[in-house]
């Protein structure tokens, strides 16, 4: 119980004390006043002068805005013209490293793959799958390191540390290797990562006569310390052939090295069997050492001591191991080959103490590895968050561990759980990047609690410089039914188009957003343009409105009015007349436009053939009367002469039409 509580606390702390975050954010939520785990790092804003002026700041989603104020340091308000500069301080700086973009993109694919691989697989195959995912992540890190090596980038050491930690976590947590195989994995781990001696090995092996090389024994020791028995024996055999006098001695050592029992990966032997064999072999080594077989050769004697797991003998080779965790693994190999996962912590602690010997204090990497050996997963994540300047590592590692079902019982006292918290931070960082924001979307998708809200807030802040980019953002929103954002993006694009006098585009965008109000606004612009110029622009669009015409009344009117013009142009007068009348009587046309419509009726009234029927003419007359009657007296006075003349002309034309139609209808009925 107690351990659980501690772990939860650690988790909360880990999340609250991320690298560049200044302290004091949402910290008192649970009421428990905790101490900061690490002093927040001091960030110098180049160009800003906090000695001369007070600075002010504002939080952004992934950035902080800082600017100099007018106030002096001592409150004397010394003023003076301010530099008037605003600084953008970024939290996740690693996001901006060019060569790391490969890491972000490739790991994004792996991340998505992991989320999609639903837990249909159980037991072993699921574990194999997760181990494979972990290996994929590591191979991406390694590929990135290679690129950086070529570019001689200073970030390589950080990547290599990340890979080292990840690999250890993979062995201990993801694969959860059992006693026996555990040691083999740790050996692989050490061999892969302790590369400092590789150059020496290469130099000796490539020399003309390795056994005469001054570093020959060093290389043999390296092989023995790393448990690379075959390679060590191979080298020794060369030395043996050069020294026929002591060939017997070499043979015995070679035999011991050959016979050394190693844990098997399969189930071919039980641990007890292994331990029995080990005991036997150990005693044999002991015998040879005691009867002084190797006394004549100090090198071989020390190797024999190493085989016996003599700590002092191993420690003598300190500089060949370079790190305490190498020492730990060598020590385990020769004294506790069947170490159980839970026993690791004791050996790890003592190995570190012995190796460092109080000379130097452990560095962050040592603390992280120690926490891993202690199976304090949350501690690992917390320490990594403090030590690394990016969220990529902790976010992906935590997600993987979460998929291994190792983190589920712990919730933070704020936000959701640790996995989600870290993913949100990482994805927010991606969104602050001008180009990587697309990756962030998928991370938010896999944060069940707050992902959606974060996405909504971030996606609206993406600058939309081309329509194509807008379409991509829009697709993201539409796929997630984010109607509010869809509307806002379309509105932004419609406004832009309108400002650029692209009415057609503007209308298309508002139709896409189903934004009736805006469609009305644009329709009015079209109609205004028509009234001013006497012809329609953008006919290709208006003629093809189709069902989208129904979006707003004004748009319907625009479409229908254009249809009237088309019919008129095609000399289909009676259809045109019917449509024109309908536009008024069905109140599709806005009142302000009735006069224009009635004026449009004029040429129809004056046609040789009678177009409007008597009934239609009465309707037209009523429309005209409605229009003039609707205006208040005050407005009437303002009506200019042109308007009055128009009305008079219309009345006259209507009357004449009515006369003609009565005659025509009368004669038709009479005949």
């Amino acid at each position: 119980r107690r351990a659980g509580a501690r772990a939860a606390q650690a988790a909360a702390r880990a999340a609250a004390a991320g690298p560049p975050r200044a302290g004091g954010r949402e910290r008192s939520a649970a009421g428990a006043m905790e101490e900061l785990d690490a002093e927040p790092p001091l960030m110098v804003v180049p160009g800003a002068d906090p000695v001369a002026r007070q600075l002010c700041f504002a939080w952004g989603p992934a950035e902080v805005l800082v600017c100099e104020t007018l106030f002096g340091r001592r409150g004397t308000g010394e003023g003076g013209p301010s530099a008037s500069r605003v600084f953008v301080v970024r939290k996740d700086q690693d996001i901006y490293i060019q060569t790391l973009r490969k890491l972000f993109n490739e790991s994004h694919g792996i991340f998505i793959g992991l989320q999609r691989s639903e837990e249909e697989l159980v037991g072993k195959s699921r574990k194999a799958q997760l181990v494979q995912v972990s290996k994929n992540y590591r191979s991406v890190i390694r590929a990135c390191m290679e690129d950086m090596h070529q570019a001689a980038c200073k970030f390589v050491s950080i990547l290599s540390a990340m890979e080292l930690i990840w690999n250890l976590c993979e062995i201990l947590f993801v694969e959860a290797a059992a006693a026996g195989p555990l040691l083999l994995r740790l050996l692989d781990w050490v061999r892969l990562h302790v590369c400092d001696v590789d150059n020496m090995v290469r130099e000796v092996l490539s020399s003309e006569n390795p056994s005469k090389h001054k570093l020959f024994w060093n290389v043999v020791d390296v092989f023995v310390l790393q448990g690379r028995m075959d390679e060590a024996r191979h080298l020794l055999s060369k030395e043996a052939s050069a020294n026929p006098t002591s060939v017997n001695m070499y043979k015995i050592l070679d035999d011991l090295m050959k016979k050394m029992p190693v844990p098997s990966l399969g189930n071919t032997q039980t641990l007890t069997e292994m331990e029995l064999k080990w005991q036997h072999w150990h005693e044999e080594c002991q015998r040879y050492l005691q009867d002084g077989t190797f006394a004549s050769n100090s090198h071989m004697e020390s190797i024999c001591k190493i085989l016996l797991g003599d700590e002092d003998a191993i420690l003598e080779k300190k500089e060949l191991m370079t790190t305490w965790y190498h020492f730990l693994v060598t020590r385990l190999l020769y004294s506790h080959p069947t170490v159980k996962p839970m026993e690791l912590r004791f050996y790890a602690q003592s190995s570190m103490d012995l190796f460092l010997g109080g000379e130097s204090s452990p560095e962050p990497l040592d603390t992280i590895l120690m926490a891993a050996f202690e199976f304090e997963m949350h501690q690992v994540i917390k320490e990594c968050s403090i030590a690394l300047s990016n969220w990529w590592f902790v976010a992906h590692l935590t997600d993987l561990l979460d998929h291994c079902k190792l983190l589920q019982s712990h919730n933070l006292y704020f936000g959701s759980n640790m996995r989600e918290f870290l993913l949100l931070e990482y994805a927010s960082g991606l969104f602050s990047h001008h180009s990587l924001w697309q990756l962030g979307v998928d991370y938010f998708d896999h944060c069940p609690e707050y992902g959606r809200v974060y996405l909504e807030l971030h996606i609206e802040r993406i600058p939309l410089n081309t329509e194509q980019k807008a379409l991509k953002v829009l697709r993201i929103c539409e796929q997630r039914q984010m109607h509010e954002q869809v509307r806002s993006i379309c509105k932004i694009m419609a406004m832009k188009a309108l400002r650029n006098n692209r009415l057609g585009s503007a209308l298309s965008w508002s139709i896409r957003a189903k934004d009736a109000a805006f469609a009305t606004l644009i329709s009015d612009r079209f109609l205004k343009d028509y009234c001013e110029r006497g012809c329609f622009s953008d006919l290709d669009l208006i003629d093809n409105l189709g069902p989208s015409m129904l979006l707003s009344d004004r748009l319907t009117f625009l479409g229908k009015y254009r249809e009237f013009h088309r019919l008129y142009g095609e000399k289909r007068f009676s259809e045109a007349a019917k449509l024109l009348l309908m536009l008024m009587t069905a109140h599709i046309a806005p009142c302000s436009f009735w006069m224009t419509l009635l004026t449009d009726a004029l040429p129809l009234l004056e046609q040789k053939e009678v177009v409007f029927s008597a009934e239609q003419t009465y309707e037209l007359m009523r429309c005209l009367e409605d229009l003039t009657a609707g205006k208040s007296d005050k407005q009437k006075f303002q009506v200019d002469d042109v308007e009055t003349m128009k009305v008079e002309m219309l009345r006259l034309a209507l009357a004449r039409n009515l006369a003609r139609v009565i005659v025509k209808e009368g004669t038709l009925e009479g005949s």
Partner: protein
Amino acid sequence: MEEVCAKFVSQKISKTRWRPLPAAALQPPELFATGSWDNEDNRISIWSVGDLGNVGLNGEYQGEPQLLCDIRHDGDVMDMQFLDQERIVVASSTGTVTVFRHHQNNQTLSANHQWEKAHYHVDQNTSCGGAACTGVICNNPEIVTVGEDGRINLFRADQKNAVRTIDNADSSTLHAVTFLRTTEILTVNSIGQLKIWDLRQQKNEPSHIFSLTGDRVPLHCVDRHPSQQHIVATGGQDGMLSVWDIRHGTMPVSLLNAHEAEMWEVHFHPSNPDHLFTCSEDGSLWHWDTSTDVSEKPSFLHQGGRSATCFSHNIINQSVVSAWLSNDPTKDRMEITNLIPNQTLSVNSLDILGPCLVYGTDAEAIYVNRQLFA
């Protein structure tokens, strides 16, 4: 799939184009160009997939694209076409059209010629107001560009000013352009219309307008059948592939349900036009094959690991013989293969030449497949 080589390039790729082969060439293409978008610093890059020197005779390096040279480009690369073996025409989101020259002797790129603000809103002379140039097509020496401003420009490679400009050619955004014949071009726009323009005629109106019925789904890409010029394929916002017979009617001959999101590019195979390739925002790239007879069973396990699906397509027109238009019952099926197994981010561009396919994605990777029909 070992035959596909991937390379992460740390920039989102908007266009990939093979360098055209000299007329008599028999070997597969070796060079291609890419353009990036949405970066603070966008670039045009030239890549080689040929066997440079003796790198890995049987080794891993063979096939992985090697960067030969690159150059900064102002604005997003919206479209890109090779004018000839050495020159590339690039359309920018700033409205500028640039001709870059690739100097093959010292592997450098330089800007050869530039039409600033070939596309613009309101006023060409103000400091701002460039409109994205969305499409470019070349027929040496002629270059046609279209843009968000609904404008069509006709340039000649070494002339300073536009030969012809059609202002307000379209009231909506023009998304792509291609040559139909030497004097006629095809454009597609954001309200689902396909228009034919005859550049010989002086009036600024299209000679034909074809349109999708109903929802006016925007069209994003267009390509013409290389040998049968009346067959045109377009791809739309809903991922639908439309095949048009521009001799008849005003509507597409067939509508084929395809991708789940915007289809960004469609290409007939230049020498093997029974094959068609499309790519989409949904992260997929499809190979449409009408050359298979149904007599041989549609194989779902064809070319292990790929998912093959058969679609029957609804045909309206009956009178044409091409596999793309025919509804002959034996030909009424085509084999469709998705060439990308684990799709994530958008595939923005593809190009095919001979047996080689190149495509680029928003996941900042370029992929080359050199044995397309293996």
